């Protein structure tokens, strides 16, 4: 399982990063039970993130109970990606997003009935106020969580266990 698990994690991370390209990514590790962040925040390039040593490090932390979060990073601005946290949202929410021209570039199922969608609105950085307004607007439209609409909200990184899902690591379905 070790090699297969590593391979699946690597594949899932690579797919997510390819779908949301950015120069740098902020990675944050939060211990699920205590809510405490693992010391340090990491800014990595996509190439650094898919290195074997990085993935092993993250998998060990995940095995210790840390959730792994990611955000495309552009300093004091938003990188152009908006997270919509669909907690118990309408199952058709993603279809409606597409119908409205708000196609997500990444959709993660973090637990049954709970999706996270990243929507890329711009290739250039967004002012925090505009990004937050966009997050609120999209959350309102699609039944997303309003608590997750600030301009630098982090979402889950694919390929790791979530305490809620019980399904193991991420698999690319489509």
């Amino acid at each position, binding site marked *: 399982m070790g090699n297969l698990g590593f391979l699946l994690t690597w594949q899932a991370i690579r797919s997510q990063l390819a779908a949301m390209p950015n120069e740098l990514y902020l990675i944050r590790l939060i211990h699920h039970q205590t809510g405490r962040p693992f010391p340090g925040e990491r800014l990595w390039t996509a190439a650094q993130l898919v290195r074997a040593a990085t993935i092993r490090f993250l998998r060990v932390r995940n095995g210790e109970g840390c959730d792994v979060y990611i955000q495309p990073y552009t300093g004091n601005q938003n990188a152009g990606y908006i997270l919509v946290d669909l907690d118990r949202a309408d199952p058709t929410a993603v279809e409606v997003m597409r119908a409205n021209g*708000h196609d997500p570039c990444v*959709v993660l199922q973090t637990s049954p009935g709970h999706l996270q969608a990243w929507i*890329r609105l711009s290739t250039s950085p967004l002012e925090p106020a*505009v990004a937050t307004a*966009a997050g*609120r*607007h999209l959350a309102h*439209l699609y039944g997303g969580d309003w608590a997750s609409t600030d301009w630098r909200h982090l979402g889950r990184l694919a*390929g790791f266990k979530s305490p809620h899902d019980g399904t193991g690591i*991420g698999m690319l379905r489509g």
Partner: protein
Amino acid sequence: MKLVHACAGLAPRGEALLQSLRHCARPPPTSPFRCHLTATEPGPTSAEEATTIYQSCMKRWHILERFPQPDWSIVDLWVARYLLSQGQPDSQIQAILRLASPHFPRRHGDPDGYLRRTVARAAFPSPGRAVCDDHARAAAPLETSSACSNSTGGR
């Protein structure tokens, strides 16, 4: 955790959304109903403006507190009735509902027809009770004209 979709690309209407948000972000907000609420100045409604108006109504009427799973077509009707009472033109109301009604167009096969019917129905006097049975059971009928009259509500 499953990666159910991964495909790089911009949302086709992302730029339009950003433009409308930037347009609305310029003047500082002074009132929850600040956006084009005069019949003499209908103007194009931005997504942010529409959302502000719709959410102001929802908050003022405590929709989510009263109805855990609201029938959005009923809320649309109430919002339309209120906006008509404020002198908003039909086209403006339809635009607000289109931009801000949650999950719109939901399962409507003819979204334009739905918006026209909703605004047309809102033009008739309120029957004095909720249209939706579920809503009628959940709470007393909401008289929109009085429910919306307090301009200090909203966010």
